[in-house]
């Protein structure tokens, strides 16, 4: 395998030519636009300066005349007139002239959105039934960004979609190196009706899905570890701030050319307190990454659903193929049970009370008593599916894919896992290979991955599902023992 630090595939000559051509075409247009923007900006600055000057002058005047016309008005009304708050540095910092070193909390300010005309579109990154993402350049600074258009249904009489609003608010609240940074929200020029809303994100060259689809060789073990560590530390940040992502999958993980991974697409995310509220929508997480408790209809769920998705992503990083490609909810559950075994009352107490579990026909419980001596485990099957994975790796993956949510490690527990300490050590981000960026050049094709669930979609009723046949393969204690050859290696 290629272990060279440098680019595995340098950008091709065609890429370069295309880039040059695009650049030329845009130049004239850009020049005109930049001029317009510059003028508008100068105009605005001038007015602001005038306002500030006027404010200062008026204040001086008031101080001179000592006028005190607001005796019954709010006390010390003029206290805030001088722009002294501007002096306060980024938060929280100890104020310098204060001996007691009080913390100053800076929450920023509020004001109108800017116009999308401050950006030049470079190329579409993704255009599909729902989403639209483009690469763009900020005219004033020349910085390249990603513009994501908020999905808005003008016929929806409930106004701006709560998912989009949450996505913006959560991204605004987040600040972590493994979470994509929201720069601002901009709107179309016609502000009398707000229809075109774009969120401006830092641009990353790739998403993991596209890389995996195109790479001729899988990631090296050291690279997988680096990617997982970054994913996991982003998730640990989210979960410690009571944010569930609820749509983790490879197409929502971005990677830049410096080997840095960032979690994106917060369209499904929300704040969920701990303990979780009794009723959350089950229509979350793209099918192939959806945890079994969601498929079984749990309305109360927590950060464990994200950890299940991490398990699916782990598997996908190893093979370049999504791990559990169910055709529908029932098929997804079948594939999960094929890989992880059937749930039992010992491995997952209470699963039978989940709404959809009633329609499952599981093999009789006699088999579970025969295996009660050892906790049922997915280790053996995973070991078989990933022969190159070390024992520590198998143990981590198996624990992420525990059917019982409470057996999955938390993100911060996962960061401490043995797997990341063993050789080969996680590769330094800077040593990561670079990949040809599709986002930088061409329109991407629509993928065959199922989409994240849509609002208003019906929660699927599983109907009657017969898993007793699966019992023949996985349900009996004998089978499990037979396959259990690798068990000695699994749990640490």
């Amino acid at each position: 395998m290629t272990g060279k630090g440098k680019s595995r595939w340098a950008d091709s000559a065609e890429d370069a030519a295309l880039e040059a051509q695009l650049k030329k075409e845009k130049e004239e247009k850009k020049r005109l636009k930049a001029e317009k923007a510059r003028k508008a900006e100068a105009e605005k600055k001038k007015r602001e300066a005038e306002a500030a000057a006027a404010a200062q002058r008026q204040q001086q005047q008031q101080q001179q005349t000592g006028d005190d016309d607001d005796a019954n008005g709010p006390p010390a009304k003029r206290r805030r007139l001088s722009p002294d708050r501007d002096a306060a540095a980024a938060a929280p910092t100890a104020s310098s002239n204060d001996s007691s070193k009080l913390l100053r909390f800076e929450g920023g300010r509020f004001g109108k959105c800017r116009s999308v005309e401050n950006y030049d579109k470079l190329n579409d990154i993704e255009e599909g039934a729902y989403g639209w993402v483009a690469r763009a350049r900020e005219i004033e600074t020349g910085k390249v960004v990603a513009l994501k258009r908020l999905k808005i249904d003008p016929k929806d009489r409930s106004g701006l979609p709560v998912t989009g609003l949450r996505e913006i608010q959560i991204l605004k609240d987040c600040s972590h190196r493994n979470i994509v940074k929201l720069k601002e929200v901009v709107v179309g020029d016609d502000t009398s009706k707000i229809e075109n809303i774009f969120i401006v994100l830092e641009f990353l060259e790739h998403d993991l899905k596209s890389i995996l689809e195109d790479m001729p060789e899988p990631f090296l073990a050291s690279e997988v570890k680096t990617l997982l560590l970054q994913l996991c530390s982003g998730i640990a940040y989210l979960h410690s701030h009571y944010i569930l992502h609820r749509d983790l999958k490879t197409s929502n993980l971005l990677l830049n050319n410096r080997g840095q991974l960032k979690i994106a697409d917060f369209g499904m995310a929300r704040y969920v307190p701990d303990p979780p509220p009794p009723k959350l929508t089950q229509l979350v997480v793209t099918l192939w990454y959806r945890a079994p408790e969601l498929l079984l209809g749990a309305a109360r769920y927590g950060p464990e659903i994200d950890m299940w998705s991490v398990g699916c992503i782990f598997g996908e990083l190893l093979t370049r193929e999504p791990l559990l490609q169910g055709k529908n909810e029932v098929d997804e559950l079948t594939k999960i049970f094929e890989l992880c075994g059937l749930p039992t009352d010992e491995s997952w107490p209470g699963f039978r009370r989940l709404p959809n579990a009633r329609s499952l026909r599981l093999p009789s419980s006699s088999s579970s008593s025969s295996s009660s001596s050892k906790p049922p485990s997915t280790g053996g099957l995973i070991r078989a599916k990933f022969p190159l994975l070390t024992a520590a790796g198998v143990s981590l993956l198996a624990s992420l894919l525990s059917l019982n949510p409470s057996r999955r490690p938390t993100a911060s527990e996962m960061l401490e896992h043995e797997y990341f300490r063993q050789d080969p050590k996680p590769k330094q981000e800077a040593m990561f290979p670079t990949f040809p960026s599709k986002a930088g050049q061409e329109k991407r094709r629509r993928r065959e991955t199922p989409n994240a669930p849509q609002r208003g979609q019906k929660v699927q009723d599983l109907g009657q599902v017969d898993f007793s046949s699966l019992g023949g393969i996985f349900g009996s204690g004998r089978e499990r023992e037979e396959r259990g050859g690798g068990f000695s290696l699994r749990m640490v």
Partner: protein
Amino acid sequence: MQLAMSSSFILRQLLNLLQKQTLYVQSNSRPSPADKAIMSHMVNPLATPEQLYQRRSFSALPTELQDAIFFSTQCLTQAAGLLLQLPQSVTAQANVLLARYWLVEPMMSHEFSDISAASVYLIAKLSPYPRSPRDLALVYNYLLSPSSTFFHPSSAPTSDDSQPPQQPPPPSPPTNIPNDYYLPEHVYNSFHTRLLRCESRILYALSFDTHVSLPHPLAITYLQALDFLNTSKSTISKRTLPYLNTALLSPQMLYLTSQPNALAVAAIYNAAKDVGAKMPECEWWEVFDVDREELGFLVVGMRSVDAWGRKMREDVERMKAGTGSGSKRGGMITRRDIEGELRRRGISLGNGDDDGGITGVGSEEPVDMEAEMARRMDEKMAEIEGSAS
């Protein structure tokens, strides 16, 4: 009519609740803010000095009219939250959002009640307690109707009628908004349209930042940490939260000039003072990162809201009486009232042809804010320069 009967209680309930609210709904309070990471969520974006200055000095609206609009609209918002059975944590966030919005866009560009409704709608939508446009239409339709006691002179508490805090709690709000309250479909439709337009307008004006941190949970946490030798904490906390709630109504916009930690400390300080609690000897507010100057400002500010409120009410009633519309329409002040008042004073305002109230259908073309602002600034500059020379 169930609603009409219960209506006579509404204002009293509102005032009562604001003054002695102890059941601050915990649903929104985050766990202890010990963790620095969590602490970063306990801050708000604040108004810039320029924003405060511009609102006071460049608006064509005289300051006292701005204040009257502010106060009555914030009261309306609270009353609506009550009828919608929203927790105070949700309604209070709507109050703050509304206040921010008015520092970015002129007060007269939309009907006040519409902006109030949109703030509530938007915050509720993002909370665990969403309310439908129809719920909002029913509640606002009612509050703005002549049968509502909201801001009607007859319901005004006289100054000596201020509620002693020992009074029993007010009757609970009506458990249901009866569907039989008459709301013609065309009125609902036009309200709905305006609601959505105002929602986007608010979001646009605030760059889609809907984050509001309230000081209430912090105040509770701080109280746990403090020791008032001679007084029980619950006595103080019963007085602390009302200070935080009435401060929402104050045109001083304390929530826009101070962070939640400072608001919480000032409210505790006032509450402790009121009951004669012995406060710690040291400068205990510094433990919560509040300096003496800011504390002083907030303490006085919070104490003056009551007197302000009474004056505001009188102003609003006088204005309604002036337009002669008070009897035919609800007690809530509208753009039309303000326009009438301006006409009487000989001040002209170039826009606003809306009828006001929920039945309003007038055009909502927002004036070209920037151009208007630039023009006023020029005038002001000339004025200042003229008087200086």
